[in-house]
């Protein structure tokens, strides 16, 4: 039904980074997953409709999340008022990426609604799919060599 999900996610991520942060983000080979052991921030937004549902996570190091926040709001690092501001910025980036995805699905007649963003913070966590759900993992690298991982969990399973 949505065989080109990877392409849709890639194009949404690159467009959001280019427009909101004025920065290019390059796709990395699949499987170059993020290294755990350092603080990370994951922003997620779900989508749900009659024929498809899923959730998309954007996650990166806490350092990169602060840089995204600074860039998005035009602030210096010392102007960030705590983690809440970073959480909101990462959540909004996830919201924009999934919003783009939703719009493309909607144009194909696949209607769905979005959830409000949520945030997970931690130093050693993984996101796993339950059975009967397709998992897509995409990795990106920013111009300043920071990694961003986007994970999409979709039901019903994709054809591959």
């Amino acid at each position, binding site marked *: 039904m949505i065989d080109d999900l990877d392409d849709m996610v890639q194009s949404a991520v690159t467009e959001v980074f280019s427009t909101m942060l004025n920065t290019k983000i390059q796709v990395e080979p699949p499987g170059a997953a993020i290294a755990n052991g350092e603080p990370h921030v994951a922003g997620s937004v779900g989508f749900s409709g009659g024929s498809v549902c899923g959730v998309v996570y954007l996650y990166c190091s806490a350092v990169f999340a602060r840089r995204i926040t600074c860039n*998005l709001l035009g602030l210096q690092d010392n102007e960030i008022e705590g983690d*809440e501001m970073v959480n909101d910025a990462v959540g909004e980036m996830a*919201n*924009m990426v999934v919003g783009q995805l*939703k719009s493309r*699905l909607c144009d194909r007649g696949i209607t769905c609604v979005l959830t409000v963003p949520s945030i997970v913070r931690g130093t050693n966590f993984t996101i796993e799919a339950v059975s009967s759900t397709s998992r897509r993992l995409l990795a990106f690298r920013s111009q300043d060599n920071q990694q961003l991982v986007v994970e999409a969990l979709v039901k019903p399973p994709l054809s591959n």
Partner: protein
Amino acid sequence: MGPKILSVDDSKTIRLIIAKAFKSFDCEVLEAANGVEGLAIATKEKPDIIILDLTMPIMDGYETLTKLKSDPDLKSIPVIMLTAESGKENVLRIAKQGVRDYLVKPFKEEMIIERVGRVIDLKPKGTTPVKQKRFDDPIKVLVVDDKPAITEQIKTGMADTTWTVVGVAQGGEALDTCALAVPDAILISLTLPENGGFNLFQLLRASTKTKSVPVFAMCVKTAVDDQVKAQQMGFTSSSPSPSTSTT
């Protein structure tokens, strides 16, 4: 006090981006985190424009818009939707409710300034009220005509005044000239190819820099349809081109 802009979005990030975008303009940016707060602030403050998100907790953008449009005191406030969702179905659904404009996230600051500037009069902070120029004041006139002879005739005609006439042949050049320094008046030939004169007028009116500059249409005497169209579009006035007025 400048115009009031109400930003209704559950994302503090978006509210901060909007507040930052209008920081350099003489306006007040009010914030609400959901539709309920937005309606309360709209009722109390009567903003000049509302920038409204769609997906929000407590009361979403659709419901907020419906309530705004059904309230006699608030229904005339222009609303620009700012949302991450751009699917055809959403656009149609919102358009039916009478929004002024629709902007999709991701967006650049300039885009939201430009869209809001189409609806309300945005003035940069610290600018003093513009003094009305007198006939004998130095005035910069931009002439947009692809026939150099006409521009030359206008220059010759104004040679004895304190006015400066700058001529360009195309709409793109005119926009570049305006970006460098806004002229006091603009004369546009309606005979520019491919409706270039009308298209240029729309672009000038869409820009916060040039939306208030008087724009005059130049056309041949017999082009009545063009004159009517120019009047309907909002040109300051129209007059025959110099070459036609002398024949």
